[in-house]
Structures are given as C-alpha cells and as structure tokens.
C-alpha cells in the first residue's frame, strides 16, 4: 500500500530522531520484558523446583514451613508409617537436616541431609551411587573443592558437645549429586537418615517429610485430608507452598508491576512526543492531503503504521536487550542468601515475550493516535490559510 510506503519512508526522513525514539522505547521494552519475566518467574520456577523430584506434599512440624526453623517432627518413624498407610499416598521420604563440621580440614561447616536413599527428593545423583550406612553423597561445592568418589570425609557434631571429637565418624564418598534446594555456595552432603540421627543424637526425628501422592489424585485434597488426620503436623501441597512463598516475595512482584507500568508510561510518552512533533511538522501537508480528498482514516492509519514500525523496531532491539539484562540480573540474584540457587527469578517463555511486545506496540500506537486524531480535527481551510503565505 502506498500510504504505508509513505509511513516507512517518513521515518527515514529523520533518521536521528527515529533512531533515538527506537532506542528509548527499546530500553523501556527491555525493562518491561524483565519485569514480566520477574513478576511471574519466581512462582513458575519455585513450583517447578518443588515438583522436580515428584513429591507433591511437604510435611513439616506444626506452624513451620519446610526448613524454616530447627524444629523437628517427633516420632518420625511412626509418623512416616502412619502416613504411608493412607491409600492416597504412594511414598514418604523423611529428611533430617543438620549442620555438622568436617573434621580435619579446618572444621568447616557442612549442611547435612539425612535421607532414605530409596525415597528421597532432595538430590539428583550425577555420578556414583546413593549413600550406604557409612557413605556420603557430596554436592558440587565439595566436588569443586577437590573431593571425589572414593575419598572419605570425617563428620562430627558442632564443638559445643564435650565429647564432640569422640563422636567423629568417617564416611566414604559414594556419589556426587545436584542438591535441588541448596542456596548458592552452600556445602551440602547427604547421608543415611540413621547416620545423621546418630551424629546429632536425635534418634527418631525428621525435619521434613516429602510425600508422593497416589496417581491421579488431587494434591490439594490429599493435603487437606492428611492435615485433618495429623493435626500436630503442617501438611502443605506444593501449590500452597508456592502461594506462601509468593506472598513472602510479593515485594518482588510489586516492584515488577510498578517498573513495568513505568516502562509502558515511558513508551507512551516517548512515542507520543515523537509522533506529536512529527505530525505538527506536517500540519500543512496534512491539511493539503485532506483537501485533495485523502480520508481521515487513511491518514490516521498512516500515522499508526509509523508508530507501529517504530515500536516494532524498538521491540526487537528491546527484547534482545531485555534478555541480556535478565541474564545479568539472574546471575546477581541467584546468589541471594538462603534461597535455593535453582530458583530462577526470570523465567522466559514465548508468552512473556509476546506480552512485552504487545504492551509496547499497544502503548506506542495508542500514543500516536492522540496527536493523529487531533491533527484530523484541525479545520482544513484555516490550516491551509495559516500554512500558505
């Protein structure tokens, strides 16, 4: 279409102006994309992290979230069996967490997880085997420190115990694993539940139990019925945990919503200003074109296409920029203390990209319509009278 060719070339008539507008809107678009990725990203990645190993429910001591406090579930064995007896449950994996010291190598601290290797969703083996009674599976941190399968690690309880060094026990490294919930830099290892119970003198306790729901059942319903059955425990589905986490992290989403809105406002103002300047420059020509019979609709369409082209160019630059920035921010935020390193703050999918692009295009074209429609309402004869000498 001829009028579209006009729109495209009109942008090239002022290359510096168009380029500045494109760059400005690109930055706004990048910010919008990042905020859209951040807003929903946490929830999505937290949910996928919690379900990685296939356990849909978490059982923790009453009134706490998993690993929230040092509190433990008492009578862990009996509790596990009781839960396992439920028809709607297909597996229960107890976890007992402890901070132990690695004897010898300057007594550095380790985050130790006691598990039942046949029923656990805490780590994913990358090499070697699950731990036997005197064996340990190490995380990447320790592997990076030079330990490997076959080496041994001596563990002992923290030194406040009088006979702490007497309780020290060597463990042979049987495997290396990815600890799903480890935060950045956390030195994690996994032992058999009994070994941790032994070392910490807590013979029948668990910090947490992970529950696998029988096939086809709704985790929320199973959680509710188990909760009724075990009022002394806190039983939550992954969905509920995500919701709780989302509430705790809601300031991230508020930040994202505010900054996302700011970037849309910036887009609107930038495109609105550029188009207003550009249209004001052309008042005489617009009046002349209308005088020769070019309809308002054609002219408004031409201006809409002009801003659409600007926004398309800006969006393509902006989306790339947004992804690069998100990558950098992700690196910074993944070191957030106490949060599992596997949590992704920025989650990318095509629908998020589409939303960011659509937001910029709609804001941009909408902004162009204001000066365009205003120009269409200027009386033709008077404008010509003013513009012709």
């Amino acid at each position: 279409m001829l009028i579209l060719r006009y729109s495209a070339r009109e942008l090239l008539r002022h290359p510096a102006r168009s380029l500045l507008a494109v760059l400005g809107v690109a930055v706004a678009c990048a910010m919008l994309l990042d905020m859209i990725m951040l807003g929903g990203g946490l929830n999505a990645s937290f949910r996928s992290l919690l379900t990685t190993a296939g356990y849909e429910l978490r059982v923790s001591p009453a009134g706490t979230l998993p690993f929230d406090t040092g509190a433990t579930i008492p009578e862990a064995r009996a509790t596990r069996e009781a839960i396992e007896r439920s028809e709607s449950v297909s597996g229960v994996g107890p976890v007992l967490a402890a901070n132990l010291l690695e004897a010898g190598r300057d007594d550095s601290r380790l985050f130790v997880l006691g598990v039942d290797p046949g029923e656990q969703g805490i780590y994913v083996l990358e090499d070697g085997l699950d731990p036997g009674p005197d064996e340990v599976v190490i995380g990447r941190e320790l592997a990076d420190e030079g330990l490997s399968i076959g080496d041994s690690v001596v563990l002992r309880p923290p030194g406040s115990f009088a006979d702490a060094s007497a309780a020290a026990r060597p463990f042979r490294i049987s495997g290396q694993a990815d600890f799903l919930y480890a935060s950045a830099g956390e030195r994690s290892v996994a032992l058999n539940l009994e070994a941790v119970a032994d070392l910490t003198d807590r013979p029948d306790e668990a910090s947490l139990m992970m529950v696998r729901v029988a096939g086809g059942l709704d985790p929320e319903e199973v959680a509710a019925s188990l909760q009724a059955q075990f009022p002394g425990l806190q039983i939550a589905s992954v969905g509920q945990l995500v919701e709780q986490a989302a509430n705790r992290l809601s300031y991230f989403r508020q930040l994202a919503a505010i900054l996302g809105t700011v970037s849309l406002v910036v887009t609107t103002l930038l495109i609105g200003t550029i188009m207003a300047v550009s249209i004001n420059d052309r008042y005489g020509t617009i009046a002349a074109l209308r005088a020769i019979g070019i309809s308002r609709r054609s002219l408004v369409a031409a201006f809409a296409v002009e801003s659409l082209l600007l926004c398309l160019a800006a969006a393509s630059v902006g989306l790339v920029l947004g992804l690069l920035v998100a990558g950098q921010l992700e690196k910074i935020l993944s070191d957030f203390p106490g949060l599992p390193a596997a949590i992704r703050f920025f989650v990318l999918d095509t629908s998020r990209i589409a939303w960011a692009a659509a937001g910029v295009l709609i804001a941009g074209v909408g902004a162009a319509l204001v000066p365009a429609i205003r120009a269409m309402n200027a009386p033709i004869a008077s404008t010509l009278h003013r513009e012709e000498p």
Partner: protein
Amino acid sequence: MRETSLGGSALLEARDVRREYRLKGDLIEAVRGISLEVRSGDFLALVGPSGSGKSTLLHLLGAVDRPTSGSVLLDGSDVAAMSDPERARFRLEHVGLVFQRFHLLPMLSALENVELPMAEAGVGRRERHDRATALLRRVGLGDRMNHRPGEISGGQRQRVAVARALANGPSLLLADEPTGELDRRTSADMLELFQSLNEDGTSIVVATHDLQLAEGARRQLVLVDGRIQP
C-alpha cells in the same frame, strides 16, 4: 484576453455564498455574498488584493470548506449539505487542487505522489501506474517520474502537483497562487500548461496575484473585500 462565451453547461454554481470567521470575538467577513457560475471548459481567474477573499472563495468552490450561508452546486451536488467524509470523497473524485507550496510528499517519487489520490480512490496498482505515467508525460515530466520532489525544480514540482490534481479525472481544477513560488519564466510555462489542459477540456479556476497568469485565463473576476467587483 480570450473569448468568454462557452457553450458548456453549468459545472459550478455559487449562490449568495458567505463565509464568516470569528476571531477573538471579531467577526471577519471573508466572503460576503458571492454568486458565480463556472461552465464546463471555463478558465476563470480570481484576482484582487491580498485579503480580498480569493483563497476562502476557492475553498468554498472546491468543497474544502462550508459556507456560513448560501449554496455551492458542483457537478449537480450541493456541497454545503454534505458531511465531512462525503465532502472528502467528493473532492477526491471531482475536484483537483493545486497549492502555492505544492504540498507534495517529500519521501515519495513524482510517480508515487501522483498515484496517491488514485490509491485512495481504490484504483488498482497497474492502472494507477499507467495513468500516473501518462499524466506526468502530459505535464512534461516523462523523464523525472522516479525523482523525489527534493530532486526537481520548483516549476517541476508544481507540474507534479498539477498531475496529482488530475489523478482521478476531476471535473474542476482549482489552483491557489500556483505560481506564487515560481519565477517569471516558470510561471509563463505554468500558464501554458493550464491553457493547454483547458484546451483539452479541463475546467480551471485559479486565485492569483500573477497578472500574466490572470490575463492568460478566459475570464477574470476581481474580488475586493469579499465581494465581486462589478
């Protein structure tokens, strides 16, 4: 001055047309009751001092503007009674307009500028191209069709504007100071073009200060203070 008697039927009829403007509370009577008739094949020049209402009258005759009172019949239609979009469509199909400042689109070639009103009227690509080519040849620009307005002279630009005005085969060509930005030589060429178009049957009304151009028309009307001088 050439013969005024024309055998053609009335193409344009203005009856007691008035146009007033309100400007900061003052009433400006730009056109104060003008009646005139333009027959098919006519070439009329509107002359008169600055501010006498020539442009205002031209806009009323060309359905660009609506009279405060009175009627304008063009091609049998009462222009004053039409809605805004109707008048735009009417201008597109029945009126050709030429401006002092050309008002061509700088980023389109001469050919594309001439095609623009045809595209608006829904003429197909091929036909548009052929007709625009023929029109540019007709105004003597067969060799500059792919040049943009910035790449040709003022006189040539005004020729492109004339070709654009003729794009949809209007029954009336209206020009407001078409030689206002041109030198004497080029103005003479423009007059020649108008005369030759007129001889081919195009009806023309020009508003002008250019005596040379006015004298080349078939007849003149002198406006003073928004009225026709008897």
